[in-house]
């Protein structure tokens, strides 16, 4: 009898601990989001979006330049990275399906998804910033595109694999060439998944800081020139948080609030769409 009680007690203790672990995880999420919300909301006002930064030490001003810079860099990164990712994923899922090459390239892409992004920053610095002699928005966009490609490639490959093979056979039977089958049948079947995957990958790179430090650098003035250094929200947060002024800290929190909730919103919506469309996850 005693032994049985001990086993039951052991089970209760272990399961309670695992419940505490879950609470521990949720606790951090609430803590972090709560801090960002509380601190960020204080500095959030219209001037924050509409004005450019004031000279250091002078209170007021906003981050208009960083919002514009962030949008430009992310936009061009998307334009460069997404087509390459989608086409590459198409090759792996269609033409190279079941071949060894496809297996190895998707494995490599999986590794590249997690490779430190700061390494990508140094790489782009060496091939774009150093030869040209100056930081540029283009370098930042290319760095983010390089990070996006493997993410989009893997998502596309997965989504295309989910399209039933019989659907393609039906199209072949009508005499359609393979490229038409891919574009008109396979893409159409997977469009929701691919689109959502692209959105999630944009959300991912929009929060990146490390690859921008040595590429697009920073700029405290308004600039839409992709050929020169350009401000981004994330690098500005880094600079402001490390700076000595209280006003800067406030604005860093406000920028953090905007970027965090924008990214979380896209992520949650994206995941819900995938869940609704594909049932699992």
């Amino acid at each position, binding site marked *: 009898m005693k032994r049985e009680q001990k*086993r039951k007690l*052991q*089970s209760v203790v*272990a*399961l309670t601990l*695992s*419940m505490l*672990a*879950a609470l*521990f995880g*949720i606790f951090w*999420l609430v803590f*972090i989001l709560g801090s960002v919300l509380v*601190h960020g909301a204080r500095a959030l006002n219209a001037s924050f979006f509409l004005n450019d930064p004031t000279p250091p030490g002078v209170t007021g001003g906003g981050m208009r330049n960083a919002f514009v810079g962030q949008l430009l860099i992310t936009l061009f990164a998307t334009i460069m990275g997404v*087509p390459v990712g989608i*086409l*590459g994923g*198409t*090759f*792996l899922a269609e*033409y*190279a*399906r*079941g*071949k060894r090459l496809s297996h190895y*390239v998707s*494995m*490599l892409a*999986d*590794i*590249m998804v997690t*490779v*430190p992004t*700061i*390494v990508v920053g*140094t*790489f782009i*610095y*060496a*091939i774009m910033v150093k030869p040209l002699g100056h930081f540029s928005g283009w370098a930042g966009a290319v760095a983010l595109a*390089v990070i996006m490609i*493997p993410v989009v490639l893997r998502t596309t490959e997965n989504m295309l694999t989910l399209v039933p*093979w019989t659907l393609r056979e039906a199209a072949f039977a009508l005499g359609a*060439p*393979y*490229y038409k089958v*891919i574009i008109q049948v396979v893409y159409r079947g997977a469009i929701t998944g691919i689109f959502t995957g692209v959105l999630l990958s944009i959300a991912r790179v929009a929060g*990146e*800081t*490390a690859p921008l*430090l*040595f590429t697009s650098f920073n700029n405290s003035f308004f600039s839409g020139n992709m050929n020169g250094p350009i401000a981004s929200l994330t690098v500005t*947060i*880094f600079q402001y*948080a490390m700076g000595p002024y209280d006003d800067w800290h406030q604005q860093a929190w406000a920028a*953090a609030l905007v*970027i965090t909730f924008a990214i*979380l919103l896209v*992520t949650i919506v994206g*995941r819900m769409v995938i869940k609704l469309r594909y049932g699992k996850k």
Partner: protein
Amino acid sequence: MKKEAAGIKTQKTKNLILGKDPFDLLFYMVTAVAALAVLAITIGIFFILVRESYPAIKKFGVFGFIFAKDWDPYREIFGAATNLFGTAVTTCLSLVIAIPVAIGIAIFVTEIAPDFLKGPIGGAIELLAAIPSIIYGLWGFFTLAPIMANHVEPLLMDTLGKLPLIGPLFQGTPMGIDMLTASVILSIMIIPFTASIARDSFNLTPELVKESAYAVGATRWEVVKNVVIPYSRLGIFGGVALSLGRALGETMAVAFVLGNNHQITTSLFDAAATITVTLANEFTEASSKMYTASLFYLALLLFVLSFIILAVAKFFLVRYQKKYPGEQ
């Protein structure tokens, strides 16, 4: 069965790309080039980093760089030991904190939580992974570091710091800007990765096997400990290795709270430098050729190291999926 089907498909594909329509070949070529872009980027990063760090490689060698403690921009003598030390300590400590928690979460989500809670709790934990690392850094610097300095670290000093063997780890001045704080932040960041892979692996355990264990009178914990965990061991290894790779390359979250001090110390309450933090702080300021080359050398080390670890992670996960293809 499955293999056969795949074989037939490949053969079909072969005939199809040789179709008469010239656009077919064009589309094939375009997609092939796009797919090989990933390969080109990987090889490109490796060669460019080797090229850029070549002066430092030539001057310091491989082991002479890895084991040298100096990091002296004035005399232009550089070694990676302090950076590797910081990276190793913060990464290991964050894994020590994160792994038990992540496995606990996975157990809770798969075995204990009522069905209506499974989705929301798992989803909430995964949201931790979506928060940008700069936010972790900002929050760690302004919110967590003061708490660590004023409450957690003095407490640890008075308790664990008095113990004989591990005591020295918890002594010194509790500033909050140190390896312990950095490790705590890192652990929060990697919990969702380990937890979600552990959860997926747990879910692959066949119900039948679990029910057999219950039938012979095992308690829930015994089923988890003796059936579910052994069954998903490879998956968990893969998840841990993946998290290790993540923690290794994390930059912004630790750049705020580590202090960027090139030293090797015994106390977790000391500032340190990791490879990523050194790069983030010093890359744009490097004044001499050798300095820049040494920083590129650090980036190269980080790239190679994380590539190997992630490849090992992938190896475990692929083997796991092959062993238990499951219904999912």
